[in-house]
């Protein structure tokens, strides 16, 4: 099969200095940045500090009034990218998807609810519907009619870049022809207070690579690219703006916030991207640096650039002062700037730089410059030492991108931290008070095996993930290891504690330990530190199919030869939030109880020395249509799985009640299509209901496949519109 090369046919961007790609580029040519004092919310201590806040009402720009601020930003960038690509999506159906990075999701809107809750004791559950990082993805998929794979990548500041590379892999693997990919993040009290608590904000605005730099500036915005398989774009006569030829990811596995002092992870990610593109370092004509303006980041990034390029360092710049650091959106914004740089043959400058730093010994481009650009590189580095690098090239180049070799993964180990006995959890006022029967993991028996620092510093949820990952390890060195962990809500307890403290004390006495623990990728990053996993480190989320999004990432890493072993899993914790919301929606009853837990599977591509527990043969992601059509679902399943090889359908039924009839109709249609009885089994009665419960379904599927010697289909529907399929064979 000819390689399916991803090309870019559309770009969209909304940020403080401009609300479209051309407006932003105009601001860049005028050297105007968008930093102004904060007015979006009150900040008693830091309100005077400049920030890249978007000053216009987003609804006036045409964004839907429903959803969160982040959702609206993502929607606006998606609309511009689609208009730019002139694509008619109606013909694509299941072949078009959306994948965005987000670090705080709808936090800005749910914080208003939390402020009311703390200061007035009133509860309004509506804004929290859009709290999740996947909310923007769902809104865009529903509004623009995308039924292909959809998920959010939540790896802090590298999310946007990782979302784009994951979308490229979905296209290469043949799972989609078109992907909207990028990132969206709005300003929020959480990240505002968080970065201030880490003393990482420059009160005068960021000055990347400058000798006097004293931190970052925060910002907000969204950027979306239309990625297409080249053959699809050519067939419809689309104008190709650029190619995505290389991408690479790595993890420092060093510290939750500080980068590796020598930039080892940054260097590894840049090398991986070059390797995938089939390029030598000398081919790179421009680097859009991560360049946040913090003392550590810029110094370490410069070290990595010097190691990679030696004495011939290409022109580079950090464009962070134009927008502020828009966290998960930032990698996508900079990707759009790289595409524009190639199109215009111009290098954007590095505002804020005036005095060279002898410790860095490098000078960025300080004025807009015409240049001959063929290949450009974009760096994004995030909390947890999470690094992602993209390489874009002009459309005329012939790409030499490495193609994946799809295959089967062997499950060599499975670690489960699951519910013990059924317990009773109290919901605390001002949430609706009451008691609920839960599937609770209780005290973690193995927590004593964690180090003193892990016990005092890490949240219970992260500890659960580490213990599950340790249990998944069998003897023997696994080689290059990557980690992909799904989560529905992320580390809510840490985030909520940080925010409650921030709001109730008016930003005094912040909790700097809690902030880096609150990011969605804290479990994956801490697993990497614990086990020394330096490959891709990904956290993804998509409601009930959060686990399967991580499993897809893991399979893709193995197919692409980027790792010898991948830990794929999911974790969610039980706290007052899901308890309270579920009680409001009358979800918890005798049949459906809230649960929690962590599951991590160790997967490898090559046959291990000992007999594997089972094998994963298929993982697919998509969205179902409303009204639900069971025959269409069976078509989707049988396109990937031979029903002769499976005897059991394992579904997420007996959780969210509205999904039960859908599952039952698919089970019946599947048996009819197969011409034999396919047994319908469920798992939520054992582990309880929570977003990543399908990870327990996966563990159950492994067990069933082993005991029965027959194939098991794990089929999951999300209350948010997504669906996933996984086939486990003995």
């Amino acid at each position: 099969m000819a390689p399916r090369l991803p090309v870019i046919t559309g770009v969209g961007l909304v940020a403080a200095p401009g609300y479209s790609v051309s407006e932003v580029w105009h601001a860049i040519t005028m050297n105007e940045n968008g930093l102004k004092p904060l007015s979006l919310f009150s900040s008693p201590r830091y309100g005077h500090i400049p920030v890249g806040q978007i000053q216009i009402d987003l609804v006036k720009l045409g964004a839907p009034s429903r959803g969160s601020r982040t959702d609206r930003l993502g929607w606006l960038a998606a609309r511009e990218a689609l208009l730019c690509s002139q694509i008619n999506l109606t013909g694509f159906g299941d072949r078009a998807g959306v994948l965005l990075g987000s670090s705080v999701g709808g936090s800005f809107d749910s914080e208003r609810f939390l402020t009311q809750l703390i200061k007035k004791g009133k509860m309004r559950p509506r804004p929290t519907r859009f709290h999740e990082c996947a909310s923007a993805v769902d809104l865009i998929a529903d509004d623009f009619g995308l039924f292909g794979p959809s998920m959010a990548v939540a790896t802090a500041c590298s999310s946007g870049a990782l979302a784009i590379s994951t979308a490229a892999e979905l296209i290469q693997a043949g799972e989609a022809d078109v992907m909207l990919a990028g990132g969206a993040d709005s300003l929020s009290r959480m990240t505002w207070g968080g970065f201030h608590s880490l003393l990482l904000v420059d009160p005068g605005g960021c000055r990347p690579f400058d000798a006097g730099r004293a931190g970052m500036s925060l910002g907000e915005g969204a950027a979306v690219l239309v990625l297409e398989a080249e053959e699809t774009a050519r067939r419809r006569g689309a104008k190709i703006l650029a190619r995505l030829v290389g991408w690479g990811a790595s993890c420092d596995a060093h510290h939750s916030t500080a980068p590796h002092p020598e930039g080892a992870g940054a260097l590894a990610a840049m090398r991986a991207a070059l390797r995938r593109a089939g390029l030598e370092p000398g081919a790179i004509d421009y680097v859009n640096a991560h360049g946040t303006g913090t003392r550590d980041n810029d110094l370490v990034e410069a070290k990595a650039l010097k190691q990679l390029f030696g004495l011939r360092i290409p022109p580079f710049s950090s464009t962070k002062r134009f927008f502020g650091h828009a966290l998960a959106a930032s990698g996508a914004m900079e990707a759009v700037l790289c595409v524009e740089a190639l199109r215009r043959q111009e290098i954007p400058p590095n505002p804020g730089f005036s005095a060279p730093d002898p410790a860095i010994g490098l000078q960025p481009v300080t004025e807009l410059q015409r240049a001959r650009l063929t290949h450009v590189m974009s760096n994004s580095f995030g909390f947890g030492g999470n690094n992602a690098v993209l390489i874009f090239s002009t459309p005329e180049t012939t790409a030499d991108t490495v193609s994946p070799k799809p295959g089967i993964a062997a499950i060599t180990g499975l670690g489960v931290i699951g519910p013990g006995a059924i317990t009773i959890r109290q919901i605390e006022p001002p949430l609706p008070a009451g008691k609920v029967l839960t599937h609770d993991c209780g005290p973690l028996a193995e927590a004593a095996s964690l180090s003193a620092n892990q016990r005092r510093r890490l949240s219970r949820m992260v500890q659960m993930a580490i213990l599950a990952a340790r249990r998944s390890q069998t003897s023997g060195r696994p080689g290059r290891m990557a980690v992909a962990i799904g989560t529905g809500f992320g580390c809510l307890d840490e985030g909520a504690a940080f925010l409650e403290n921030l709001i109730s004390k008016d930003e005094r006495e912040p909790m700097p330990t809690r902030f880096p623990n609150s990011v969605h990728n804290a479990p994956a990053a801490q697993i990497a530190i614990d086990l020394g996993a330096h490959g891709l480190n990904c956290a993804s989320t998509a409601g009930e199919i959060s686990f399967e999004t991580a499993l897809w990432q893991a399979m893709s890493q193995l197919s692409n030869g980027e790792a010898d072993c991948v830990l794929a899993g999911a974790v969610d914790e039980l706290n007052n939030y899901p308890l309270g919301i579920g009680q409001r929606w009358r979800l918890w009853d005798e049949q459906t109880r809230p649960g929690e837990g962590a599951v991590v599977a160790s997967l490898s591509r090559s046959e291990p020395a000992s007999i594997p527990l089972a094998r994963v043969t298929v993982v697919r992601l998509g969205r179902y249509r409303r009204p639900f059509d069971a025959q269409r679902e069976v078509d989707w399943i049988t396109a990937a799985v031979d029903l002769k090889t499976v005897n059991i359908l394992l579904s997420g039924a007996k959780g969210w009640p509205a999904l039960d009839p859908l599952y039952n109709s698919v089970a019946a249609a599947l048996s009819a299509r197969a011409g034999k009885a396919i047994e319908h089994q469920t798992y939520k009665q054992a582990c309880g209901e929570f977003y990543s419960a399908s990870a327990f379904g996966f563990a159950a599927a492994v067990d069933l496949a082993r005991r029965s010697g027959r194939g098991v289909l794990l089929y999951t529907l999300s209350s948010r519109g997504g669906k996933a399929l996984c086939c486990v064979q003995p």
Partner: protein
Amino acid sequence: MQVSSNELKTRIIASLKLQDITPDQIEDDAPLFGTGLGLDSIDALELVVMLEKDYGIQIKDIEEGRPAFASVRTLAAFIEAKRSS
């Protein structure tokens, strides 16, 4: 005013949630970071919060606090100097 090193140690233990350690186990001159107690940059930020809460001293740039965080003795001296200035 003299800062009690025992009181300071108690506050360090509480703010960093140090486990299985008592104030008398921390030497006045032992390094707090790297070796010694093995603290890191996030712990330094917790100490910044503790200094503001318990001693009313505000640190806006972590570089300013770095020499003070060398040991309990240097931290006590830093607090005394800040209070008398």
